[in-house]
């Protein structure tokens, strides 16, 4: 039978003990018995106040020591990693806090919690910060219908580990339309695959200057007359809604049904690099123009097929060296 705190009773409490002696100190300050602290000292536990304890370890030479402290500061429990300098007798010991992990708003009681690393904005995807909130790390990319970032989900009640999409890859956008797009005897604008919904757009995808991205995908259509074809384009949306006439074109791919052939499926594939000029969250959409004779029908049966036909996405390729 033992008291729960009994472990500390295994340490002696010398008064003014010399180096090399294990010691435990009760009180609110580091007393003489801790001075001097040298590299001959073993690790020790130091009570530094009510419900607070610091564990220290001497590294290397000299009189400095490192410590990990569990304490209540700034109104909440904290774990502090620190460095203390100057521990000769009579010295005023200087404590330098190296870093601190403290619960954010709310209780530190589980996975639905907030952990701050550095002082960046929580859940930010900006450079130089990292946030963990609500058991997810946002890493950028195309997300759900609300346009929220892509998530890796850690331990939660639903799964051990889950990632919605491969890191840094936008969710593939599948497009299709089974209905006729009409005659394309002249260059005719046919359709914008982007009406402000996540299903038809890649929205708020974070890109960084200096990195290279690629738009990939393929697009299948059906031409009912020989020579019919279309131009597939991916645009960067500048304003609040798609404007294919003025929005920058990032990808252009073209395909046509062969002469003398009718009712034939035609597939356009593309793999186009893209290097953004500045850090930004960008929104992309696709459009098609028709040309030639005949009627164009986008093949909807391939929408979401397991083969991945008729979809497009953006992929982070990192920094080119």
């Amino acid at each position: 039978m033992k008291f729960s705190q009994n472990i500390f009773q295994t340490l002696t409490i010398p008064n003014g003990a010399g180096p090399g002696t294990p010691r435990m100190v009760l009180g609110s300050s580091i007393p003489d018995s801790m001075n001097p602290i040298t590299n001959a000292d073993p690790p020790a536990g130091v009570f530094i106040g009510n419900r607070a304890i610091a564990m220290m370890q001497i590294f290397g030479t000299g009189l400095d020591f490192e410590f990990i402290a569990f304490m209540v500061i700034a109104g909440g429990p904290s774990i502090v990693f620190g460095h203390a300098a100057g521990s000769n007798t009579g010295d005023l010991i200087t404590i330098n806090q190296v870093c601190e992990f403290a619960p954010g708003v709310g209780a530190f009681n589980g996975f639905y919690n907030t952990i701050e690393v550095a002082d960046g904005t929580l859940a930010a995807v900006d450079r130089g910060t990292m946030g963990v909130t609500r058991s997810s790390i946002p890493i950028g990319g195309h997300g759900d219908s609300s346009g929220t970032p892509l998530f890796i989900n850690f331990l939660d009640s639903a799964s051990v580990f889950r990632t919605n999409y491969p890191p840094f890859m936008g969710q593939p956008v599948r497009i299709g339309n089974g209905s006729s797009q009409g005659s394309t005897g002249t260059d005719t604008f046919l359709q914008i695959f982007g009406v402000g919904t996540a299903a038809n757009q890649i929205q708020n995808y974070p890109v960084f200057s200096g990195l290279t991205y690629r738009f990939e995908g393929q697009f299948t259509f059906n031409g009912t007359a020989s020579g019919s074809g279309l131009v597939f384009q991916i645009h960067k949306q500048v304003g609040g809604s798609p404007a294919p006439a003025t929005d920058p074109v990032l990808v252009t791919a073209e395909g046509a049904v062969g002469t003398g052939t009718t009712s034939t499926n035609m597939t356009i594939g593309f793999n186009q690099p893209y290097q953004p000029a500045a850090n930004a969250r960008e929104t992309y959409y696709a459009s098609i123009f028709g040309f030639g004779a005949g009627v164009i029908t986008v093949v909807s049966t391939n929408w979401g097929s397991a083969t991945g036909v008729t979809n497009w996405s953006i992929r982070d390729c990192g920094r080119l060296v």
Partner: protein
Amino acid sequence: MGMLVQGATVAANGTATVTFAQYSPSLVWKVYQVSVGLNPITQGAQAFLTHDGQPVTSSAFGYSDAAAGDPPIYLRASETLTVQWTNAGVGGQATATIYYEEIPTAELSRYLGGLA
């Protein structure tokens, strides 16, 4: 499982003592846990637990702590279990609570694996 609470007033020298004893030769108390407390709380108060005068364990948190775990303490007739506080606030109330099970003395050997 039974529970027994006893208290004592902290003396002028900051000490207090609570003693548990059982007097039935036909029974043995198997004590699972001893909880200690001080009112008001006194930082730095220590608690010492002894069994029939022999030290068992102690705590630097005599104002609120609990001793438990193996081995349990078997308190036989005329034996005592004592909690003593030091550095407690003068005039304060020291309280100790034991949680125990009564065992017929004839069955004690079964609890101790035939060693008693």
